[in-house]
């Protein structure tokens, strides 16, 4: 009997170690795989040229990725600016001010939004956001636009990220102990002062983490953005101009343009770039969390 229990103990531990090893090795394998596939491109262009050049002429073996990197950054930046305040304020309201009944009502609504396929957001962007920008918003600023713009991509991406970030922020604020809020209130703070000085402050590592994961998700989002962003290679940033993010480049061209020499290596390099940038975003946010926890 004892031998059987010891065997189960060892087997379960081994299984857990094996599982965690797969999780550890997987990103490494993806990174190495992408690097190997992208490697032929480095014989034609240096890494600096690939990242800093804005010339995209695949037929002439000119692969400048700057427009795509900037396209991704622009769309992600807009999405973050639009979604972050909405998520933060909504999460504070739901966890600190609203009734439990309203919270129970909102939970499935958020879950439905989070579960919608990205293509639905894309279609919604095409039939609502794109015409809204071309017919109302752009003329309001005296600009002529097709509506397929960086702004449209940013808005659709923001709406997609809201349920994702909101769910995480709700969890963050729910973990702030009631005793901490009571301590602040009993010192004469109003509820808003308590939220501002105690709840948000206590939740800062979690807030940073939620925003970091949200940005990483937004940066890698493909389908919905690709449907509304215009997919035009350019480096200048204007809200009412089209853009071309990295994931859209891969999704639009992989499998179709591979007859062009080096094109598949270029697309693999763009995937590697995406991989590294998301890794860097996560590392930067991890560092922020470490810093805030250190001084907590």
């Amino acid at each position: 009997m004892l031998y059987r229990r010891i065997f189960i103990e060892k087997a379960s531990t081994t299984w857990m170690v094996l599982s965690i090893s797969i999780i550890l090795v997987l990103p490494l394998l993806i990174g190495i795989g992408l690097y190997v596939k992208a490697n032929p491109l480095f014989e034609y262009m240096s890494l600096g040229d690939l990242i800093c050049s804005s010339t995209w002429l695949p037929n002439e073996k000119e692969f400048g990725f700057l427009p795509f990197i900037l396209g991704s950054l622009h769309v992600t930046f807009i999405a973050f600016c639009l979604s972050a305040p909405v998520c933060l304020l909504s999460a504070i309201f739901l966890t600190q001010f609203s009734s439990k009944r309203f919270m129970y009502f909102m939970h499935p609504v958020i879950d439905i939004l989070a579960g919608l396929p990205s293509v639905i957001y894309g279609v919604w962007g095409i039939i609502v956001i794109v015409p809204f920008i071309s017919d109302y918003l752009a003329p309001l600023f005296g600009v002529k636009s097709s509506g397929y713009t960086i702004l449209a991509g940013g808005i659709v991406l923001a709406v997609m990220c809201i349920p994702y970030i909101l769910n995480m922020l709700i969890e963050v604020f729910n973990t702030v102990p009631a005793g901490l809020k009571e301590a602040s209130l009993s010192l004469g703070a109003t509820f808003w002062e308590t939220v501002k000085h105690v709840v948000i402050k206590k939740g800062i590592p979690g807030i940073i983490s939620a925003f970091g994961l949200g940005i990483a998700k937004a940066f890698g989002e493909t389908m919905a953005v690709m449907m509304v962003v215009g997919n035009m290679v350019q480096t200048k940033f204007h809200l009412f101009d089209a853009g071309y993010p990295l994931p859209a480049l891969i999704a639009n061209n992989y499998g179709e343009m591979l007859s062009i020499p080096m094109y598949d290596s270029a697309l693999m390099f763009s995937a590697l770039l995406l991989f590294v940038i998301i890794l860097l975003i996560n590392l930067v946010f991890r560092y922020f969390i470490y810093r805030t926890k250190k001084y907590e």
Partner: protein
Amino acid sequence: MYLLKEEMIAHDKTINIMKTDIDTESVLQIKNLNVHAGDHHILKNINLRIPKNKVIVLLGPSGCGKTTLLKCMNRLTDINKELEVSGHIYIENDDILNTSTNVPLIRQKMGLLGQRPYPLPMSIYKNVAYGIRLKGVRDKKMINYSVEKHLKEVGLWDEVKDRLHHSPGILSIGQQQRLCLARGLAVKPRIILADEPTSALDPISSKIIENLFRDLKLNYTIILVTHVLRQAVRLADNVVFMSNGEIIEQGSPQKLFKHPKSAKLKEYMVNGN
């Protein structure tokens, strides 16, 4: 005889024995207080007078409504939307349950010390200064003076004076509890509400807190919730025994513990010891 004779003697020496009924000047008066949570009647028609500069111990089994009663006194029940509170709680002739006075001002009259310390997510200095700043004090010298004074009042100054701008996380649980007490005292409350403040502490830290309460009652009224009979004997000027949301018996610890009238208190004392 349910309690140690030595403890009774020590108590007699340190605390003036009160009469059975609270007849000194009241700082807080509760009349017909009822609290409901849906169909559950948590507090049932509570009537109580709290005399000034005394330690009043609320004693009773878990779930009898002690903490809810304590939270009614500084209206922390407001944040639980499921609770319905009715009745009157008078502090300095102001009925805090039916008043136009701002609730934060009412709460500043009632310092709260929880079951376990909850230092705010800021430095040791800012923890004590938090309530002072909420009162509108902006003068840095005044705040510094107040922080030092109240940290000294709880005997923490010498231990933290060189690391005032560090996180309270570096302090032991006992030190954190004293920090929370200093933070509460800094807003100059009339009454200290202590909800089992030593339950998470080791015996030495508990003793420090108990000694602090003995000193603090010269200037403050202390309402202490505890499960520990011996602590009640050591500290209480008056004991209020509760069960099932009702006040069953109240009086001086000498009378209450030597000659308990109710079967519930007798049973609690037997099991509590």
